[in-house]
């Protein structure tokens, strides 16, 4: 049962949101909304990105605490290093190979139920995060709005991690562990497909 003053207090932030539609810049794809949508879609439209991001979440869930939340924190932080390199146009060799390898390696770690120390897991994830970040950063200068582009692709990356974590929580059941490891195998195969040019 809500206390007397609570409904008004709870309504204030929602009331402010009702005023927000005027802030929308929809319809043409330009401006704030255009930048956000292109940034949000960037990781989602690349199967190599999607599989690797999901694999990070899967592996984190598989490793359990504290990896389950440290890996999704490490990844975006290190991704910015790669992203900054991409934005600045500094050379980073074999970006697409690195992205494909990330799916292979992370998928393999999940499939083989690899349980390295937290430091090693974070290092592996961090190394691959640089390649993913570089690819996103390379696209940024052409975006309609750089800030909302960055917001979009960081949020999309985080949601992909979350989906991997959600699926990875199935490991608490024996059948779930098999399913998660099988998913890791599929991710590894997809990564191989990109690595050898089949996909």
């Amino acid at each position, binding site marked *: 049962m809500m206390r007397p003053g609570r409904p008004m207090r709870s309504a*204030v*932030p929602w009331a*402010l949101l009702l*005023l*927000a539609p*005027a*802030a929308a810049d929809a319809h043409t794809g330009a401006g*704030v909304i255009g930048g956000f949508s292109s940034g949000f879609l960037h990781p989602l439209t690349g199967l190599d990105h999607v599989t690797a991001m999901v694999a990070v979440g899967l592996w984190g869930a598989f490793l359990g605490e504290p990896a389950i*939340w440290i890996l*999704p*924190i*490490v990844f*975006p*932080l290190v*991704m*910015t290093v790669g*992203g*900054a390199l991409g*934005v*600045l*146009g500094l050379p980073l060799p074999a970006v697409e190979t690195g992205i494909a390898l990330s799916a292979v390696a992370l998928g393999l770690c999940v499939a083989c139920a690899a349980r390295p120390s937290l430091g090693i897991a974070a290092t592996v994830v961090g190394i691959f995060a640089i390649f993913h*970040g570089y690819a*996103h*950063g390379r696209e*940024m*200068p052409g975006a309609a*709005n*750089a*800030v*909302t582009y*960055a*917001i979009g692709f*960081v*949020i999309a990356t*985080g949601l992909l991690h979350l989906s991997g974590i959600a699926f990875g929580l199935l490991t608490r059941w024996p059948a779930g562990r098999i399913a998660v490891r099988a998913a890791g195998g599929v991710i590894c195969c997809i990564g191989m497909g990109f690595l050898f040019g089949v996909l």
Partner: protein
Amino acid sequence: MGDFYSGLLHPLRAPMHILILLGLSLWLGQHALSHLKTAFMVFSPVLAAALGLTLSGIFPEVPQPFLLLTATALGILVAAEKNLPAAVCGLFFGLSAFAVGLDSAVEGRTFGGSIQSLLGTWVSAHVILFDAAWYISRGERPWMKIGMRVAGSWIVAIAVLVLALSVKKSG
């Protein structure tokens, strides 16, 4: 109402301001509003002063790197779940208010319209900051606290990337 309404919406239309205000509210909420008094005492008057200074036209446009570095610092504090002494917290609140306020200059309006617009911005910034912080402080479950730290890392990621872009554009 038009000028005030426009000012009310201003922070919602400025992604960098949202990042800074969100970073502040996450940090404030993470530590159970322990620095709420400092926040009120520093953020409110500094924001008012900075908004007022924009009327003078003395200060040029706030360099985007300043906004981005502020957001980055706040994101790091949130990701690390780092609490700081009240004086240092006050410094962060003051810097953030100064950055957001000075970057909210109004153009193309009468003096009265500008005042209304800046007042709207002042109100909106407070609502965003303190209401969000209040809700965030209610997140006591472990996964909620982890989510806050993840959000902090996202703020750092966004700010550093945009900072790299602004360095490239200015270089």
